């Protein structure tokens, strides 16, 4: 805690230096102010997510339908369970972190080491979970049809259950080649072309009389509008321009492009914080092992990274609420 104090001959005077009105060391105070500014950055992200959500409040995707995967449960609708699990993992790693800080106060090196290790493991599990979540989000499940207006149309059966495009479309042979750097302009390539194009989808949709189109629009009760068979066919023929499977920054099969953009930026920025948190925790972990803080006589460094780690947990609590619950 002792910061370097230069002797100026004015000790004891108000502006003589060496005063600590906030009774914390320089490092800890600056960690708090860094956290404050970082909190405002995240608030900016989440508030602008709120802006987009209010702007498209009658056509925003339903989070429960997007994030409904759970490991080893294929095709089972499991909304929220996985993120809930991730939340518990992060809260628990916060607990082990605060236990490490607590053990540091009592100068118990072995305990600090153990708890730091558990915190790092928790952080790594969380990062892995997030990677899996991203994988599912990017790959997509059902696929959707894009319209001229940049909206998407999803396919459901007559009971309202989602139908994957790949399940009913039969593709016809095409002459269209995938443009790669090796067969066209060397500095240009394009995303993988879906195995079928809009015309295939429209033809197959016509052939399957049980299929209906679901639009992005929400009813008063918060459900997506499902068109009648006639309307569905008309909508497809008038407006369909492309097929999208999964999600990227330009378009996604879940609905509004902004939904995926905010998902990538907010969870990505948070994941980046978790990643750096794990890195810093590892550095501190080795310092604890080497006995640096034992020699220094204070484990305050553990406390400072602890603040950062708890902050990461704090942000996740808000991301969890606004992305998955509200």
């Amino acid at each position, binding site marked *: 805690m002792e910061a370097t104090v230069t002797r100026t001959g004015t000790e004891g005077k108000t502006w003589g230096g060496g005063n600590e009105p*906030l009774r914390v060391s320089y490092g800890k*105070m600056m960690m708090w102010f860094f956290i404050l500014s970082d909190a405002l950055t995240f608030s900016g992200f989440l508030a602008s997510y709120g802006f987009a959500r209010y702007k498209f409040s009658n056509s925003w995707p339903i989070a429960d339908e997007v994030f409904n995967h759970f490991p080893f449960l294929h095709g089972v609708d499991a909304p929220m369970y996985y993120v809930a699990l991730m939340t518990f993992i992060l809260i628990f790693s916060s607990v082990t972190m605060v236990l490490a800080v607590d053990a540091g106060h009592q100068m118990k090196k072995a305990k600090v080491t153990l708890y730091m290790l558990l915190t790092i493991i928790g952080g790594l599990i969380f990062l892995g979970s997030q990677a899996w979540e991203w994988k599912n989000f990017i790959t997509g499940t059902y696929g959707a049809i894009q319209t001229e207006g940049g909206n998407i149309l999803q396919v459901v059966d007559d009971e309202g259950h989602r139908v994957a495009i790949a399940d009913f479309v039969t593709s016809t042979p095409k002459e269209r080649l995938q443009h790669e750097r090796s067969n066209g302009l060397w500095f240009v390539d394009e995303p993988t072309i879906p195995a079928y194009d809009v015309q295939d989808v429209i033809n197959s949709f016509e052939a399957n009389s049980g299929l209906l189109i679901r639009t992005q629009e929400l009813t008063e009760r918060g459900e997506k509008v499902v068109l009648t068979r006639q309307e569905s066919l008309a909508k497809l023929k008038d407006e369909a321009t492309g097929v999208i499977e999964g999600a990227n920054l330009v378009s996604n099969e879940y609905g509004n492009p902004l939904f995926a953009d905010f998902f990538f930026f907010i969870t990505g920025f948070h994941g980046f914080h978790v990643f750096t948190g794990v890195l810093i925790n590892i550095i501190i972990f080795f310092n604890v092992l080497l006995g640096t803080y034992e020699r220094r006589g204070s484990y305050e460094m553990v406390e400072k990274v*602890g603040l950062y780690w708890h902050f990461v*947990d*704090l942000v996740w609590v808000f991301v969890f609420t606004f992305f998955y619950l509200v």
Partner: protein
Amino acid sequence: MAHDTAHESNSKRIWTVFIILSAITLVEVILGIIKPDFLVHTYFISLKLLNWIFIILTIWKAYYITWAFMHMEGETKGLRRSVVWTAGFLIVYLVFILLTEGDYVHEVMNRGHVAWDF
């Protein structure tokens, strides 16, 4: 450290807070899965009652994380206020401005002055 007078373990408090945080999260998840009809279709200041509950529970969790885990309760009043009040006021202002504007833009598009589904 302002609080280095005593070095006794805080682990009892830590586990209590962990249990509280887990319980709140569990309540959130259960409410999010069953979505009681009454809470979804009742509005208070143009926000669903269910969402109000989620937001209040979240702020409650944030309070426990900051106060207990980050040990804000042990810091001086000056540090606490310079961090919590600064964030609090700025965030409330930002959220108010952006949500009001978002709602306005929604109204403009919804009344057909600007076409978005063509």
